[in-house]
């Protein structure tokens, strides 16, 4: 038993986190930056940060992940990292020739007080930024928020650095997709295209972190939102921010900077949230929902109808990032399952409030986020009251094994399975696939463990 170290008795331990259900800001900033075409993310801190983030993203995507580091030394941590960052900007442009560099800070550079605005200004003055090239930046202290906050901060950094205000507005709709997979961003673009709505999705890691095998290593794969499109985003008609935690701040900043109004929506995961997304896209663009999308929805409803008996009353434990958990919990309730334990390491009262509403009809539900809301806690909850299904990132595998419980991997990181890069979770098609995986996990478990007399050929 791998996790025999998890006792059933729950004790107060707010100074100690065991098996975190989050990680730190900079990796989110790096992920967001990779969604710009020709972008080199840059980590302003010690070498290890950059190495860890690249490794973690590579383990999740099985793709090369390029990023620079300021390689802080003892001297830099005493005298400030300006010299390191200036030299890094010079090196990156000279050698790696990116379109744009997206710098994020770390706990180290934040605490010693490096001012990115000033340093990037100096790089400009010193002529280190070649004509037509750009450097954007975001402050991402690791001791505030979580990796989701880092994503949100880099989206804000993108907005601060690129879009230009325009009096004339285009028909294009901006979509900030949230921290979702390349496959999800691809699906969002497909749905918009199906509706005939011109969109600029940013950041967009499709074609970057799910790139094709070509026989060549590309520093800058062909995907990612072109810088010019993001610059033009300031002249677009409306912004849809998908996921309050990851996307709203960026959309707000774009409204303040360029006067582009925005609507915050939940991530379009599951039927109700996808309905709201499609409806809103139709409302703001004036384009009707085409029959093809109505058909996709119909197929999802058909599947739920067919298999409803297997969903009813199933107790689910889920963990991960707030935007995903909100949408997934709503979907689980909509198919008559019971999300009884929900944990996110990402702090924020808004999450607790939102979850309270979603879980209103599930009195036994427990939900915790922020300090000591970790994988250890959710395992303890499960030990005190079994569940039928686990839904979350790879770190649930110890619990799944220890408790012999069906487990469907969603979220970040997924280090031990494939599929998340290729098949979306968002949209009606994403919901069908999620249901397929949930059903298969439940039914495989039943087939493998039920008494012989109950083995059924037809399920």
């Amino acid at each position, binding site marked *: 038993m791998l996790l025999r170290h998890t006792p059933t008795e729950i004790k107060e331990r707010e100074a100690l986190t065991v098996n975190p259900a989050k990680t730190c800001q900079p990796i989110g900033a790096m992920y967001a930056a990779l969604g710009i075409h020709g972008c080199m993310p840059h980590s302003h801190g010690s070498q290890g*940060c950059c190495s860890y983030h690249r*490794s973690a993203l590579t383990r999740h995507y099985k793709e090369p992940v390029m990023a620079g580091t300021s390689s802080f030394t003892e001297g830099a941590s005493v005298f400030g990292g300006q010299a390191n960052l200036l030299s890094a900007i010079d090196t990156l442009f000279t050698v790696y020739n990116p379109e744009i560099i997206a710098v994020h800070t770390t706990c180290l550079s934040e605490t010693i007080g490096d001012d990115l605005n000033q340093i990037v200004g100096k790089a400009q003055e010193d002529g280190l930024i070649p004509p037509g090239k750009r450097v954007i930046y975001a402050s991402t202290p690791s001791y505030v928020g979580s990796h989701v906050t880092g994503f949100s901060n880099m989206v804000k950094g993108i907005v601060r650095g690129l879009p230009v205000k325009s009096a004339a507005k285009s028909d294009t709709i901006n979509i900030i997709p949230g921290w979702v997979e390349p496959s999800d961003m691809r699906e969002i673009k497909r749905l918009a295209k199906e509706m005939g709505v011109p969109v600029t999705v940013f950041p967009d890691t499709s074609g970057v972190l799910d790139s094709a095998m070509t026989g060549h290593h590309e520093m800058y794969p062909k995907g990612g939102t072109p810088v010019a499109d993001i610059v033009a985003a300031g002249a677009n008609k409306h912004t849809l921010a998908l996921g309050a935690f990851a996307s709203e701040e960026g959309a707000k900043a774009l409204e303040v900077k360029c006067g582009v109004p925005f609507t915050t929506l939940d991530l379009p995961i599951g039927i109700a949230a996808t309905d709201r997304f499609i409806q809103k896209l139709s409302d703001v663009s004036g384009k009707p929902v085409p029959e093809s999308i109505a058909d996709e929805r119909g197929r999802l409803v058909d599947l739920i109808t067919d298999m409803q008996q297997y969903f009813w009353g199933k107790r689910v434990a889920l963990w991960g990032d707030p935007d995903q958990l909100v949408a997934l919990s709503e979907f689980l309730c909509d198919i008559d399952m019971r999300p009884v334990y929900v944990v996110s390491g990402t702090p924020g009262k808004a999450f607790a409030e939102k979850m309270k509403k979603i879980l209103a009809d599930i009195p036994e539900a427990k939900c915790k986020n922020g300090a000591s809301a970790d994988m250890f806690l959710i395992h303890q909850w499960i030990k005190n009251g079994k569940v039928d299904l686990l839904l979350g990132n790879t770190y649930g595998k110890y619990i799944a094994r220890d408790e012999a419980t069906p487990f469907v991997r969603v979220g970040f990181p997924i280090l031990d399975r494939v599929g998340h890069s290729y098949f979306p979770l968002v949209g009606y098609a994403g919901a069908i696939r999620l249901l397929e995986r949930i059903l298969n996990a439940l039914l495989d478990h039943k087939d493998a463990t039920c008494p012989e007399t109950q083995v059924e050929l037809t399920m």
Partner: protein
Amino acid sequence: MTTAILEKRRAQVATVKDGKASIACAKPSLSGSVSQRACVFCGSRVVLYPIVDAVHLVHGPAGCAAYTWDIRGTVSSGPELHRLSFTTDLRERDVIFGGAEKLERALRVLIARYTPKAAFVYATCIVGVIGDDVDGVCRKIAVETGIPVLPVRSEGFRGSKKDGYAAACDALAGLIGTLEPAEPVPPYSINILGDFNLAGELWILEEHYRRMGVNILTRITGDGRVDDIRRAHHAKLNVVQCSGSMTTLANHMKETYGVPFKQVSYFGIEDMSAALYDVAAFFGDPVLHEKAAALVRDEVTRLLPLIESYRARLTGRKAVIYVGGAFKTISLIKALRLLGIETVVAGSQTGRPEDYDTIAGLCNPGTIIVDDSNPVELSTFARERGADLFIGGVKERPIAFKMGMAFCDHNHERKLPLAGFEGMKNFAEEVYASLMTPVWGFVRNPRKGGAA
């Protein structure tokens, strides 16, 4: 050579000529280079992590703990405390007011709950900057709880991964010599330093030494136990692999307790055999030597037909080796040669000048040698030299695959043991399988000189 080398890195790349290559190394990385290196914390964490009955508390923001949670495939024959991730998860408030008090509370909870044999407290970047008295807290909690509580000075910015190894060795030095053996130590007793029991490799070595009649007193740190480490000074010899990480400790034990050491490597037939013979030679007992010789004969006889069959099919292939420690590069060049594969690019993240001299001596003229390299260099050199195979770690794997090169993970993510004679068999199979996988036939745009 090529434009792929950063101007300021020119001295860290060389081409072998007459068995020599002059290369600069042990330098801090250039800012802005996409270095494959990690930090001090990473170095300390990977070295100490395999001690399975200690708690490892990362004092810092959650990230440093999250990224090092169970990522090293090091296995335990007993407790699995090391596979949990503990952190003080420092928040903004702690950064402003100090995190020492939170560390104290975390340690108390942790030690009360798990009753570990020792606790390691890793200081991360932020702790170095805000100036928490980690040493003081550790001393206090050690007195309170009666177990060793060891600070690890692993602030990320203090240097490279190598400095992290040294910090880990310092912490280990604090344990060694603090416990006396309950029963007499057998005469032919050694410590194994620098094997981390990835995929159970240490157990293979243990079995080899046991067959020779040599007793393993302490494993540092693979499948490690705190009490064994505390008694380690009673061994007659330290057998040191991964010299980069363990030389500091070996030197300390030699100076403080008079325990001499020998450097070895367990990768490949040649080096594995030498590791056994060297130990036999140290004890000077012909019986040991005979047993070692018999063991090597047995194993090699069993292994050679297999190696021959692979060599017949692999001869002429070319490899890039880019791994963390240079000792591994050296062993791998020899192991590949046994399989008929020529190394055309060889490098490491943290090699020393003498390591690179050895490497140059082993390689054919024209081999490119790199220190602290990066993806652009590595992929350019691989293409230029027509390599078919890449041996590296997690960050290199997808680059190799994207280029249509075969790959073998010789780092934390190895799935099978690669050490010992059995490891050589696994290595040959893995290399062969990856070079021959039919997928290369489907790549539309193969590299020039690419794999079959």
